[in-house]
């Protein structure tokens, strides 16, 4: 564990020094992320100004929902998203062997060495939006619902981690899998809006088959007191299965790795 912590610290130091080398660009990139994250809530504002909005979600609740989405994806951006990028790059260049020769489990090595600091800008934006809506809705964070919220958030991160492992595993087989990553990110757009709008069949699919709804819908609803521990256990099952499948795919993919590049 300590070795992994050192690895993480070293990677963080390296990431910081890279960002400092192009300081202005880094700051502008963060700024760009903040703007693009604010566009979602802005559109919600424009919609609620012109109509009654979406059934079951008041304006402030919708902002809580989107804040949660931005917060979760922000953390994933910072600590998880770089894993497939690393794998795809290394597989394409044929340099993945370097990672295999490291005295770490390859997946753990990638997990602890893939950091992208600009994601912090998104985390802060997310926290800002969540805090704003909680104050407006007069919801306390010292409640049982907040505990469920935290649990669901962990589950959301586990789902995103699994999805990234899955894409990485496919990188061993298809080599040029940036397109798959793009596909996944577009699929995640589904989670930008509450599941209520999609109808029951789609809600079922995005909960149990491809549990995208766990990113924002379940945590936000839990914080609003609409779900309890029973729902959590219900969602825990598909996410765990997804995680297990992704690990299986990873092990399968790494066996297929040919060191040839492409």
């Amino acid at each position, binding site marked *: 564990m300590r070795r992994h912590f050192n690895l993480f610290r070293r990677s963080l130091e390296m990431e910081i020094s890279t960002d400092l080398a192009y300081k202005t660009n880094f700051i502008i990139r963060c*700024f760009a992320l903040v703007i693009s994250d604010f566009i979602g809530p802005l*559109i919600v504002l424009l919609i609620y100004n012109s109509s009654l909005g979406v059934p079951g979600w008041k304006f402030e609740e919708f902002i809580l929902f989107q804040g949660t989405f931005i917060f979760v994806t922000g953390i994933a951006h910072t600590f998880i998203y770089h894993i497939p990028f690393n794998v795809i790059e290394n597989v394409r260049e044929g340099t993945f062997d370097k990672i295999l020769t490291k005295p770490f489990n390859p997946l753990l090595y990638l997990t602890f060495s893939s950091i992208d600091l600009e994601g912090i800008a998104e985390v802060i934006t997310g926290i800002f939006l969540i805090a704003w809506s909680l104050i407006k809705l007069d919801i306390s964070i010292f409640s049982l619902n907040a505990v469920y919220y935290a649990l669901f958030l962990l589950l959301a991160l586990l789902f995103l981690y699994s999805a990234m492992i899955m894409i990485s595993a496919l990188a061993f087989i298809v080599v040029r899998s940036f397109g798959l990553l793009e596909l996944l990110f*577009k699929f995640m757009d589904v989670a930008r809006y509450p599941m209520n709008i999609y109808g029951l069949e789609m809600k079922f699919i995005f909960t149990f088959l491809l549990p995208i709804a766990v990113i924002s819908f379940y945590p936000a609803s839990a914080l609003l007191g609409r779900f309890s521990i029973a729902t959590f256990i219900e969602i825990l099952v598909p996410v765990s299965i997804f995680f297990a499948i992704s690990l299986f795919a990873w092990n399968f993919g790494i066996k297929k790795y040919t060191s040839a590049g492409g």
Partner: protein
Amino acid sequence: MHKKIISLIKTGFKEAVAYRFHFYVSLLTSPLQLLIYYFLWKAIFSYSGQEIIRGFTLDGIIAYYALNMIVSFFTWSNIDDRIEGQVRGGHMVNDLLKPFKTIYIYFFNNLGVSLLSIILETIPLFLLGMIFFKLELAPLFYFAMFFASIVFALILNFLISYLVGMTAFWFNMISGIRKVKRVLIAFLSGGMIPLTFFPETFQKIFSYLPFQYMRFVPINVYLEKYAYTTVFVMTGIQVLWILGLYFIAEFFWKKAFKKFAGAGI
């Protein structure tokens, strides 16, 4: 002259063919995105019980998003990305040595990419939109003017991309600026939500900026939102913006040229 232009367009086309996988992915993801918009707006319309929101019916707004995708694919430009790469890698000299003004080299190259996008994205999306997303064939006049206005939109988008790319001469690494540009254009051009949803004051401000002429105006032309004369006025303003931005681009290009050392970094 003629032959040179055609060969520049051909190069752009061939370069884009090499990345055709990207086009296939976007063909897969755009229906998904349209579907998300469809569900969102269906919920909003039925919950509000309004027939028309801000000048759009439910079918109208879905057609708007479908057209938005078509316009954004057609006007796509990565020239800023390319200039950044050339400046950082020190390969800019190759482009400067060509017997052509650099801006034309880049433009015709970009045009080649758009031609491929017509085949791989624009036409398939049109068909898809007509079959599944209530997109109707516009009357001949509007259809022709739509085509003219998306060509102008392409030139506008190219010029802004070119200007943004030039900042690389000063800042070297501009992925941040490029991202800001992409996000702002998508939002201010009406690419995320029709501009009619904004308060009046904002709409007024937008009419003095070039962005709405890159998406919102061409889409409105197709959707027959304007009278004949207004269509001509709108496309006229597009041309004025093109001329204005062209001169600004030329001005900065001369400055950038002085700054340029040719060595890369």
